[in-house]
């Protein structure tokens, strides 16, 4: 089955992200003191480090639901410039070079000359 089957429904990061999206105060604390918020939600050292390093591949390997991964990036990079030339794209290029290169080649073919 697909990539979502890899998510760990019991992973503390997944629980944390549910609350972070609903709570502006928690979002601000997440950015200013990630270590404290990670402790409160019981994140493992590996989860904490993958978030700190903003590494989509490691996050998904640990079981973070794929939908939350760009949302973690948004907490740091904001929502401006949601184009395919965004900071999120750079992180995905590093984490998934083959898949992202295929996507960009497809984009060039579909939108070339327009």
């Amino acid at each position, binding site marked *: *089955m*697909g*990539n*979502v*089957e890899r*998510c760990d*429904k*019991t992973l503390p990061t*997944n*629980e944390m*992200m*549910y609350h972070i*999206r*609903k709570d*502006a105060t928690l979002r601000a604390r997440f950015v200013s003191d990630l270590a404290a918020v990670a402790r409160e939600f019981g994140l493992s050292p590996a989860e904490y480090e993958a978030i700190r390093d903003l590494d*989509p*591949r490691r996050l*998904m390997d640990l079981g973070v*639901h*794929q*939908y*939350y*991964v*760009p*949302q973690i990036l*948004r907490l740091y990079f904001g*929502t401006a410039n*949601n*184009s*395919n030339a965004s900071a*999120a*794209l750079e992180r*995905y290029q590093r*984490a*998934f070079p083959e*898949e*992202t290169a*295929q*996507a*960009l080649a*497809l*984009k060039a073919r*579909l*939108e070339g000359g*327009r």
Partner: protein
Amino acid sequence: MAQIVAAMAMTHSPGMTGWFTQAPKDQQELTLRATAALRERLDAARPDVLIMFSNDHLLNWPMNNMPEYTVGIADEHVGPADWFDEWLAMEKYRVAGHPALARFIVNESARRGLALSHLRDMQFDDGISVPTHYLNPDGKFQLVPITMNCTVPPIPKPSRAYEVGALLRDVVRAYPGSERVAVIATGGLSHEPGGPRYFWVDEEFDRWFLDLLARGDHVALLRECTLERMEAAGSGGTAELLAWILVLAFTRGPAEILAYMPAIAWRSGTGMVAWSALA
């Protein structure tokens, strides 16, 4: 008894409002034309209520307790949720609900063996907000939102979505009122939100799926369009088409494909369809 007067489906990708102009001009224009055509169909059908079938993007429910379906029963719906308004580049909107119909759907479905969760204060992400922006911008139609899980395992199979659609069709028709109801599926087509193929769309799958809808053979569609096929065309996103398959049960015969575009800038295969014949 309530009457179902229109059935349609459209993509709800956040790029369609949040970064609309990043797509090529022809895709922008096609989106505006096709959504205008859907609005014209709604005006002609004169619904009182829109039932929108979408999916919850992990906003309303945590992963430790994810219901299959949830009905919003509020007197008034307000969106987008704070986390989404900047992302969607949308001002807050308010749309009247239809709590009597929504609560009847919850209770009557239970009597018929279908468990639906409900929320009095449902939060809205792109799933309801983007179609509302295009189809109900002035809030003239009341709204009953019904969200589904299509992204947290286990993901329901297409046959299940169709079965739920058939039951809900009968439940809505059994509502003791004279309301005219339009059913609208939102989501799809191919995309993989946040996954390794986040920046990709599967045009071949999308055209194949739309062709199945245009052929209008529900049995063939349910046989060929498996969950595995949808997941292969973009995990955790393409299965939003379960909402389209649910609405399929309200219809018969071919769908009219109003638009398709492999809108890679919006990171989603993008389409709009409408059905002329209702089941």
